[in-house]
């Protein structure tokens, strides 16, 4: 029942909104999606709400449904990586350093491995990270490079294989001082 309500509201909205295009052209499409009133809210109606009424501007990104279309994640990831590389979009992430007044942005795809990335960061912020050990983390410096991954966790840079790092890193943070010690020591 509530779905009928959603449709009705929408139809009324449309009656009052100003838009380009001949009157009556949108109505047929609307009939189809409202026909099955006992259905659950269709993702399609959400899309329509987003895309109509904005005929002058580019349509916003379409709402993505989990697990649709039914393409294996392995395959989807494959295409996505290819797209990023092909379009030269790169993978830009923000870099912050504790104590520095400004953020920087770097393109992770410009680097092939960790040493290159580290050098670039050191140059950018004028500091040095010390040496990386698998168990103990970074030694020999107050600065520890960390990153936030897809799950929202803060991780030590260098622990995971490079490719995994590039695909899961959301942003970088160079920690300093006592906070750094906690993360940098064999966590």
């Amino acid at each position, binding site marked *: 029942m509530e779905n009928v309500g959603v449709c009705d509201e929408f139809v009324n909205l449309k009656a009052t909104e100003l838009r380009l295009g001949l009157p009556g052209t949108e109505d047929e499409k609307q009939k189809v999606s409202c026909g099955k009133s006992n*259905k659950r809210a269709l993702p399609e109606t959400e899309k329509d709400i987003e895309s109509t009424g904005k005929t002058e501007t580019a349509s916003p990104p*379409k709402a993505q449904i989990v697990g649709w279309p039914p393409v294996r994640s392995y395959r989807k990831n494959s295409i996505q990586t290819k797209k990023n590389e092909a379009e030269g979009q790169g993978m830009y992430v923000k870099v912050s350093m504790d104590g520095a007044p400004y953020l920087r942005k770097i393109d992770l795809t410009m680097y092939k491995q960790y040493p290159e990335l580290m050098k670039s960061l050191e140059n950018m912020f004028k500091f040095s990270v010390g040496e990386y050990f698998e168990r103990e983390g970074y030694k020999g410096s107050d600065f520890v490079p960390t990153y936030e991954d897809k799950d929202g966790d803060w991780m030590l840079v260098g622990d995971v294989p490079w490719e995994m790092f590039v695909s899961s890193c959301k942003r970088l943070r160079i920690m300093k001082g006592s906070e750094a010690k906690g993360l940098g020591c064999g966590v």
Partner: protein
Amino acid sequence: MNRAIKSRLSTSEMNYFPDEVIEHIFDFIASHRDRNSISLVNKSWHKIERYSRHQVFIGNCYAISPERLIRRFPCLRSLTLKGKPHFADFNLVPHEWGGFLHPWIDALAKGRVGLEELRLKRMVVSDESLELLSRSFVSFKSLVLVSCDGFTTDGLASVAANCRHLRELDLQENEIDDHRGQWLNCFPDTCTTLVSLNFACLKGETNLAALERLVARSPNLKSLKVNRAVPLEALTRLMSCAPQLVDLGVGCYENEPEPESFAKLMAAIKKCTLLRSLSGFSEVAPVCLTAFYPICENLTSLNLSYAAELQGNHLIEFVQFCKRVQRLWILDSIGDKGLEIVASSCKELQELRVFPSDPHDEEDNNTAVTEVGLVAISAGCPKLHSILYFCKQMTNEALITVARNCPNFIRFRLCILEPNKPDPITSQSLDEGFGAIVQACKGLRRLSVSGLLTDKVFLYIGMYAEQLEMLSIAFAGDTDKGMLYVLNGCKKLRKLEIRDSPFGNAALLADVGKYETMRSLWMSSCEVTLGGCKRLARNAPWLNVEIINENESGRMERNEEDEREKVDRLYLYRTVVGTRRDAPPCVTIL
């Protein structure tokens, strides 16, 4: 021996032969279903069958326990196991849901089973399991992993190092942590038995020298599929020392090759006169595909579905010369025009898969295929029996034509990218179109439907799809009747998976006994409630009824009110071993 024959004659008129002869006869019966059937004839046959059974297929690893498997089939040599439900492929199942390999390896090792082959699909495999496997089974020959995860190249290193008689290591679309190690180096110099090696899904660097040495000392190598880290020059060298290859997966050619390198590649390819199957091409300069022209007429299997770099015209130029191709996997960038050319060139085509190059329609390229391509294929390829087709739109008229052209479909999977999309010409649902398919294709075993669909399509499916074993439904139907038509009508149904459709408790509970004849049922974002699921679990103790929760941390609370709450994801399956003990917190088993 005479007494044995006499005693059998007196107990049963059917058993004229001694055990050894019956066993010999059973050797000719390979199909799992037939072997299951013969084991039910009488006790004697059951016993003979048990001890002579070498291959076992387990479609749901939680339907049986490893201990019971080994007790019944002590002479097991080849095991196939499937774990997570199919929709796990599309991120609908939490990562830690289950499907762990370890208990199986553990039990098989303890039971001293002479395991030689292991095939896994959607299982969680750990490095420890792989290591235990590699050390426990002296005659181990073949490991095939499809859509598995949980392991790293360290696990592969154990297999390489310890399986002295390894013939096959086939890794298909797995998520593997690549530790950039030297797993290829772990194959001992004495290992010369490899027949099939597929590591296309590995994301890291590959030790090219180790790979070349391995290939050079494997005279029986028939199938080689490398990953992206194997460049053109390396591929040339590999093919030169393995001209006997039948199946090749190509790595990457990022840049336009030098003319000399290209010439060497072509020369190497020309020598591979036995090559019948080609795949890979994940990063390809279009010109490199042309290097394969000399052998493309020999190809029976071609998978270009990862070649996102290739434009439609490159694909068409190549595929039109593959006149003997039987299995073709391709991207929709080939377009309707391309499919028309395939239809006129590839008369041997049996299986076609067309994948979306732009699944979320982020670019407005309009390169997707439509009903036009499908109709052309159905008209031009008389041997077609399996299709997976992702498209922008479909019409009833087209489906009716396809049904008329191709009554031999065994698998028909159609995915219209936009959910609920009606026939664009008539604005009607696609009930009639799919109805025509099920009516014409009397041998149809697998069906996936999409687009705008009412209960009527399920009435047709229930009425006509007599051989249907697996049905996938998404965003379809109006009422419980839809699901009931299917459950009542499809007598051979084994797997039913439904998402985002308005089917509820009435349909779920109507015939509880039906689920004993099926492997599993999946329902997500439907109308079933917790109360309905609880009632089902009470009435069907032979089923595991699993509720998978939205947020992965919380267990469900047992309140009165919650009974009316809709269940986000339901997965139920028959089992002879009761509730599993390895379920994570986000899964509640009723």
